[in-house]
């Protein structure tokens, strides 16, 4: 990734009058963490980075801004927002366009072809973690960890995030600016996590998920971090009627997790954020990927690729499969 080109493009974009800010990544507060950066002026573009630590999906910030009531006579800020987007992030943008969650003219996509991201917990587990800042870089095939003057070679598959192992679209599917060259796509690994579960019988799966869902603390970080969970009035916050009680127990946790997964069926773009942020380490990605695969194989639909597509659950085909109907 050419940081010079990135910063030059970013400076050019944020200098425009019709751009509010650019959402990108900057160095985080410790270790090899990165944090989202909101760049408002050309002088701050220097803090922008793009490294294998940029696992987070920034498309979630497009819909996260609260719409508070404005004083009389004041108009809403209609300026554009620029966004650095990897392959999966750009698919989230496309899906948001499909659902009209955002409008094409309101967003500038700075496409960043992505050679694969790391999983911080894998990295910390295998190579330790430091309070001191470190950096991870791509070095062609593998990763290099630069920490305290040392350079540690890390084999790609040691720390590659699961979503990247399974990735089918590492290059941005839409972009207004493309930084660097498109990367060569790799063969997605077989989804062994889902496969193992499918091999179990239905009770075995029930036991597995009972163990997982019982741990859920209902912090809703999976919902909030998801770029496609952006309802103004979420069913989980509703009190009248209360579909899903606030109480934390296996019953309500399962109801919550099923409804969350169902709302994402045919919409999930497999960015793996829900799984990454879960403080209880619940493998939510498995459910989402399973649903995404069903949609792909049974209905021949893949979300987040075509901005002109119809939303999956709000459309139908006369010949949809109906083998399950009595």
């Amino acid at each position, binding site marked *: 990734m050419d940081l010079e080109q990135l910063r030059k493009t970013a400076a050019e974009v944020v200098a425009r009058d019709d751009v509010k800010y650019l959402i990108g990544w900057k160095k985080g507060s410790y270790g090899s963490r990165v944090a989202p950066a909101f760049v408002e002026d050309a002088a701050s573009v220097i803090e922008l980075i793009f490294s294998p630590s940029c696992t987070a999906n920034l498309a979630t910030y497009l819909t996260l801004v609260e719409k508070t009531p404005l004083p009389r006579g004041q108009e809403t800020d209609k300026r554009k927002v620029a966004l650095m987007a990897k392959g999966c992030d750009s698919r989230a943008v496309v899906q948001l366009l499909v659902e009209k969650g955002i409008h094409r003219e309101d967003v500038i996509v700075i496409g960043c072809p992505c050679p694969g991201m790391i999983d911080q917990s894998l990295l910390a587990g295998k190579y330790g973690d430091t309070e001191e800042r470190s950096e991870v870089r791509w070095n062609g095939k593998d990763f290099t960890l630069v920490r305290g003057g040392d350079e540690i070679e890390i084999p790609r598959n040691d720390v590659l995030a699961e979503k990247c192992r399974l990735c089918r679209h590492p290059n941005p599917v839409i972009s207004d600016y493309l930084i660097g060259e498109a990367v060569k796509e790799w063969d997605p690994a077989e989804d062994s996590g889902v496969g193992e579960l499918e091999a179990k019988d239905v009770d075995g799966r029930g036991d597995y998920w009972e163990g997982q869902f019982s741990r859920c603390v209902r912090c809703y970080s999976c919902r909030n971090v998801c770029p496609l969970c952006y309802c103004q009035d979420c069913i989980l916050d509703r009190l009248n009627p209360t579909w899903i009680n*606030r109480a934390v127990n296996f019953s309500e946790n399962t109801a919550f997790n099923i409804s969350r997964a169902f709302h994402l069926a045919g919409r999930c773009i497999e960015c793996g954020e829900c799984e990454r942020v879960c403080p209880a380490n619940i493998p939510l990605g498995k459910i989402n990927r399973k649903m995404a695969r069903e949609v792909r194989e049974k209905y021949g639909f893949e979300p987040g690729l075509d901005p002109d597509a119809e939303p999956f659950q709000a459309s139908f085909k006369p010949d949809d499969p109906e083998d399950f109907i009595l």
Partner: protein
Amino acid sequence: MLLNKEKWPEFVEKLIGKNLWAPKLEGEAMRFALVAEGEEVSLEYGNTRVPPKGTAFPQTETMYRFQLGNTDMQEPKLEEERILLGVRPCDARAMAIIEKLFRWDYDDPYFLKRREMLTLVGLACNDPGLNCFCPSVGGAPDSAEGLDLLMYDLGDSFLMESVTTKGEALLAETKELLTDSDADAVKTKEKLFADAGAKIKRTVDHIGIPEGLPGLWEDPLWRRVSASCIGCATCTYLCPTCHCFDIQDEVEGFEARRCRMWDSCMFEEYTLHTSGHNTRPTRRERTRNRINHKYSYYVDKFDVIACVGCGRCINLCPVNIDIVEILRQVKEELQ
């Protein structure tokens, strides 16, 4: 008193019948759970993922049950006594800190009863975590505040020091496994935990922050630090000192229960009024409240910072919002 590590399994065995809870690996993270018969307890962990505050302040607790159209209430029986083994000093301190709130304008029966039935056996930290900063906020890797009994890992034995009568009673019960401590052990302990304190790299300089925070009410700082917040409750639910709760009625057919459950100031509906007005409409106000509550309001009311420096909110924030970094910026603004 000293407990040789060879006697450790016996010591645990003695406690198991008494509703013993200890950190257990669940998935990839440690969590306090009931220790069943014949199970081994390992104390090799940094900090549990979810703090043990839930043992006195459960995430969901039934206050009473009732039937629709009937004014009779049935109060559930509170759980029996339990022993928590291997509580980190920061988490124990947090229990002492939130107890101040639950004793504030009236004595909260639920928390206090549960708290009374707990015996906290602490384990001092030999190897504090990456984002720990307890010494900056009044704690220490070997602080005994809030604990009944504190164990120090000296390598081949544990040095046990009772703090309260409950702790003494526990030591008396396991007397035959223990040997008297000597001056050497105490010396080793002091050296070990001075070293442990020195391993902590992160610091917060809170001098002037409690008084200064209200003056920064409209500071642009809050928009800056909250811009990346996604508004989840990871930082608050996993915080050992966060104690906000909500009370809701749950109805099933004709039966109902009133229960109280954790709530988080980072949620949008936390301050949402029935009218539709929200007093903290954006993440800016919510983040400001979180920091103010911990470092200003609580100090104002109870004279103690409601943050024990356990580092959970830093470790687990999905978007790397770092309370140490926020406080550094606050300090900068104040100067």
